[in-house]
């Protein structure tokens, strides 16, 4: 049947059709929907793991037990999973093991723009790179064949434009391969030096065998062109830009497997054209390979290694003409993302800013606490870095640092890798204050369950990790819980914990305002006679509040009635009939 599918949905369909039985992932834009879609197939066991390292190790376990398995993550997640990745390369697999990783060129929703293709070469693991949804489905199935044939994990590299574009796919039936038995094989599965030394040559042999396969594989194909003055080597979404820009004008070598790359096929292609050009996003990965083959090649001299490419860009850089539309001669104000109206994070950041604290931030919706007018965050690096960084910041700084610095981290991020940092704080005794922003969901990636929510990926009730007990158990004596909507209490508690001479955790607990089960009191009303136009309510950066003709105005389509703005109004101008009790 022909249907439109997101690239991520098509990968999930490929897993299903290939008879994959076990999926363990951590959410991250733009990879999340692979696992969400996989979870919709009843035949597939799918779960959110606490982090990518756990997910990949779980998927390896399932592979060893004899079931085809999958693990999905975003590019930075592969950094977390890199430890098992490099050694799985040595141990190989039992049943097929496929790892999906989605890059985010252009950083639509990421903290860096790393090019995950380097991992394939570094870990010596083959990587397939689909260019649309049809290929995403096909390559997912092919990945299992390669995994079992060559005894290796296989990476499928997605990118934002392939993951989040719908295109036409033709679906097939699920075929369940015969269950493989687990057999003890210490020299293959126990990677201690004596065994690993014997496995390394196997890894190198495997790469050569895969390279031979790449020479004749149909996924590395040449699209013929009329004009051989220029020949283009490309892959992924860039292939689509090249075809859009030039159609059948120039011959194109489209690589479906990005590591290992063929040698003879590239040499032959280069010999058939006058000029060889590589079109690829981010780093010159294919280009470097071509240079290593001694070929004269153009690539990053034309195309930037920063951001995304597009059909116009490809056309222009290769000498074509493009037309653009007329632009308004007008300053168009930017529209950056903001915390939603009613977001429970907003008031905490207001308090932190008011107290003039140094705030080490983390990865999630609450990173938006860095944006004006809140501007309350000092640092953001990676998952968990707020808590671990706080320890160093407090230990290395003077006494004053401890009383003026906090870490903020979300519930899911805390479980992902904040808890290890907290153990360090307890064990090595730094006088640190950590604020867990517990909104009872993984917010930024679109509401995924996590170990603190009490529900699993399939939506069934499950064991709920109790954050208070967890913090106590790792050695934190002072654990307080506050309602972020109650700003006065929040301020008092934060001050008390900063003053305490031992580490403490403050759990700021209120569910994400966008969760369907959350009931809101309804929009705030402005008493325009009481409103003096002092703009105090504007300092929390709520998208529902604006000033019209010198008076506060509430956008009733956005306002949920959290009442935070009312706590800032000295004149009692912001109220509703259903005044929430935290007021």
């Amino acid at each position, binding site marked *: 049947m*022909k*249907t*439109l599918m*997101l690239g991520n949905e098509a990968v999930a369909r490929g897993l299903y059709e290939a008879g994959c039985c076990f999926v363990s992932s951590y959410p991250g*834009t*733009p990879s*999340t*929907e692979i696992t969400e879609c996989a979870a919709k197939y009843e035949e597939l066991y799918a779960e959110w793991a606490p982090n990518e390292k756990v997910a990949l190790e779980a998927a390896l376990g399932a592979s060893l037990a004899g079931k085809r398995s999958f693990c999905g993550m975003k590019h930075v997640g592969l950094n977390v999973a890199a430890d098992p990745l490099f050694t799985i390369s040595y141990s190989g697999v039992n049943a097929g093991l496929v790892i999906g990783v989605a890059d985010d060129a252009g950083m*639509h*929703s990421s903290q860096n723009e790393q090019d995950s293709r380097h991992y394939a070469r570094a870990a010596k693991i083959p990587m397939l790179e689909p260019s*649309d949804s049809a290929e995403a489905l096909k390559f997912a199935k092919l990945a299992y064949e390669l995994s079992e044939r060559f005894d290796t994990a296989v990476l499928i590299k997605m990118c934002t*434009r*392939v993951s*989040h*574009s*719908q*295109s*036409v796919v033709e679906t097939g039936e699920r075929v369940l391969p015969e269950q493989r038995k687990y057999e003890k094989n210490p020299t293959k599965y126990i990677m201690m030096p004596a065994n690993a030394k014997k496995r390394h040559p196997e890894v190198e042999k495997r790469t050569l065998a895969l390279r031979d396969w790449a020479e004749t594989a149909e996924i590395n194909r040449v699209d013929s062109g009329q004009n051989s003055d220029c020949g283009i080597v490309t892959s992924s*979404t860039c292939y*689509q830009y090249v*075809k*859009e820009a030039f159609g059948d004008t120039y011959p194109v070598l489209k690589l479906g497997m990005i590591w290992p790359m063929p040698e003879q096929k590239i040499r032959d292609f280069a010999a058939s054209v006058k000029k060889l050009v590589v079109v690829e996003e981010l780093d010159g990965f294919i280009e470097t390979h071509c240079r290593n083959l001694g070929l004269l090649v153009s690539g990053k001299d034309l195309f930037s290694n920063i951001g995304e490419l*597009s*059909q*116009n*860009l490809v056309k222009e850089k290769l000498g074509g003409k*493009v*037309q*653009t*539309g*007329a*632009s*308004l001669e*007008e*300053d*168009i*104000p*930017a*529209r*950056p*993302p*903001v*915390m*939603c109206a009613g977001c429970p994070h907003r008031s905490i950041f207001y308090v932190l800013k008011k107290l003039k604290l140094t705030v080490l931030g983390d990865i999630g*919706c609450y990173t*938006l606490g860095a944006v*004006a*007018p809140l501007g309350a965050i000092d640092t953001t690096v990676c998952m968990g870095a707020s808590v671990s960084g706080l320890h160093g910041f407090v230990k290395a700084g003077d006494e004053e640092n401890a009383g003026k610095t906090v870490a903020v981290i979300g519930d899911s991020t805390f479980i992902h890798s904040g808890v290890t940092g907290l153990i360090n704080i307890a064990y090595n005794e730094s006088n640190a204050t950590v604020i867990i922003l517990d909104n009872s969901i993984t917010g*930024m*990636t*679109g509401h995924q369950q996590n170990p603190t929510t009490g529900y699993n990926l399939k939506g069934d009730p499950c064991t709920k990790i109790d954050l208070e007990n967890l913090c106590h158990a790792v050695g934190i004596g002072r654990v307080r819980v506050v309602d972020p909507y109650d700003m006065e209490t929040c301020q008092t508690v934060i001050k008390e914990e900063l003053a305490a001479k031992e580490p403490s955790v403050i759990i700021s607990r209120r569910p994400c305002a966008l969760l369907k089960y959350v009931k809101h009191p309804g929009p705030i009303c402005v008493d325009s006679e009481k409103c003096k136009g002092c*703009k105090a309510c*504007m300092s929390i*950066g709520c*998208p529902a*509040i*604006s*000033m019209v003709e010198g008076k506060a105005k509430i956008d*009733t*389509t956005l306002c949920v009635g959290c009442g935070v703005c009312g706590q800032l109004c000295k004149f009692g101008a912001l109220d509703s009939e259903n005044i929430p009790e935290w007021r």
Partner: protein
Amino acid sequence: METKNIMIVGVGGQGTLLASKLLGRLLLSRGYDVKVSEVHGMSQRGGSVVTYVRWGDRVYSPIIDKGQADCILSFEILEAARYTEYLKPGGRIIVNSQQINPMPVVAGVAEYPENLEEKLKKLGGNVDALDALALAEEAGSSKAVNLVLMGRLARYFDFTQEEWQAAINQSVPPKFLELNKKAFQLGWNT
């Protein structure tokens, strides 16, 4: 057939994804090659969002580049102004005249441009402006802005109202069907 391009732009949370989903499905049912490109993640939180819908005999790129859009369907008027460079000469802009202030305007560090509708018209394209928020409220909920705009967009396609309605029925929860139907009608007729 040359590839046709529609850009759907708006503010994260306005429901732009539903419009592209429905349109994609309808076009596929006509046997076209279709690509629909979406934005997920951080910008969905009240940021500027863009969705591309492309169809034809063979569609390659998932995105629409500058100068390529036959039509921009804008859920908010500043967002229409932001993307005019993407419009083909003579292309059409369908725009909800609603103003949603971006945070720099709310915070007082930038100004919301005035008379955008006139300025858009002066650029030479066909501008079809409507107050979709008022029509959505008339239908029963301010949240139905996306269905009002879809109704208006539908006027420029040769699908029947029944075909649109069938696609809507597949995509929205039954309890909102009446509301959405009414909103779609208001967009189509007004």
